[in-house]
């Protein structure tokens, strides 16, 4: 008879066992804040479709202190999400070859940041241009 009795360790609380996993869970968790902001914007769009009074009401609501605090929390969470997301870029993208040489992971991360900062600046210029 076999004396084998392989022991399978439980996975409970696995994500608390390593700082790397904690970062991963926080990264995934902050995606909910991205979703929350998308809902806020979609709601604004719905109010816009309901006419001027509804739209102005939404704009007023956005200016309330509670809304500003909420937005600051969202901003912090989304910046963290972006930071950890760009960090994963070299893991998730196929190798980028320039002049026959593989581009360094660090450069791919910086490329992501450059694109994000560029897009932010362009958005600000457009919004301020229209205002």
């Amino acid at each position, binding site marked *: 008879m076999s004396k084998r009795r392989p*022991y399978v*360790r439980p996975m409970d609380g696995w994500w608390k066992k390593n700082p790397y996993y904690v970062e991963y869970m926080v990264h995934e968790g902050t995606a909910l804040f991205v979703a929350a902001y998308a809902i806020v914007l979609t709601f604004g769009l719905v109010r816009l479709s309901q006419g001027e009074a509804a739209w102005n009401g939404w704009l007023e609501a956005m200016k309330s202190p509670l809304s500003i605090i909420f937005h600051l929390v969202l901003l912090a969470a989304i910046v963290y999400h972006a930071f950890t997301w760009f960090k994963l870029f070299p*893991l*998730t993208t196929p190798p980028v070859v320039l002049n026959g040489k593989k581009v360094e992971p660090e450069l791919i991360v910086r490329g992501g940041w450059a694109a994000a900062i560029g897009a932010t600046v362009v958005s600000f210029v457009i919004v301020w241009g229209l205002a």
Partner: protein
Amino acid sequence: MSEQKIIEIEVLRYLPESDEKPRSEIYKVPFTDDMSVLQGVQYVKDNFDGSLTFRWSCRMAICGSCGMMINGIPKLACETFIRDYYPKRITVEALANFPIEKDMVVDLSGFIEKLEAIQPYIIPKEPRTVEEGEHIQTPAQFAEYIQFTSCINCTLCYAACPQVGLNPDFIGPGALALLHRYNMDSRDGGQTQRMELAASEEGVYNCSAVGYCSEVCPKKVDPGNAVNINKINAAKDYFLRFLSPKGGAK
């Protein structure tokens, strides 16, 4: 002569014949600055308890046998030095996400089955006789896969991957990196068979891009990258079949 330094090594022991579940045991091991954690546990086996069981062979990070969780991190014990932990205690445990057979020996049969399943050998595009000569490959074609050939099957990446722990059927980072290695080889014609596995229920989509597998790899294989590239490849296969005249039918 300076005083003999002593390190505490806490080992997770499991003897299937007498232990209901694993338990910790602490050993006080005298060490010198050139001693690896592997030498530390060898000292325990030779001097304190001959029943302590662990795998090891080459002592130079090439055979991939001595993977252990050292202070909770998957590492090769032979290239991890006691001096880097002293005076703190070192904890040593069997590789995570595998069933423990005894002490630090884990059941690797699941991994071996996955390795077999990805067909880790070249499946020639067309049969070729000796008279026709060797397959020619350019340096650029070689560069496509060379990084993924460095895998030594140490399974540290499996111990680092929570998805492997949560779903033991997931083919996992190491075997998928080898799948990618053969798929990228210009001499190989087995992509269709292997991609079926990559895109399957057990395949690449189990990966949620934690990325720790690539972090712990002692050979810089970057298995996480191989897995994620094949998410894109599997998605391409899925959508492109609608464009092919046969609609993906073989």
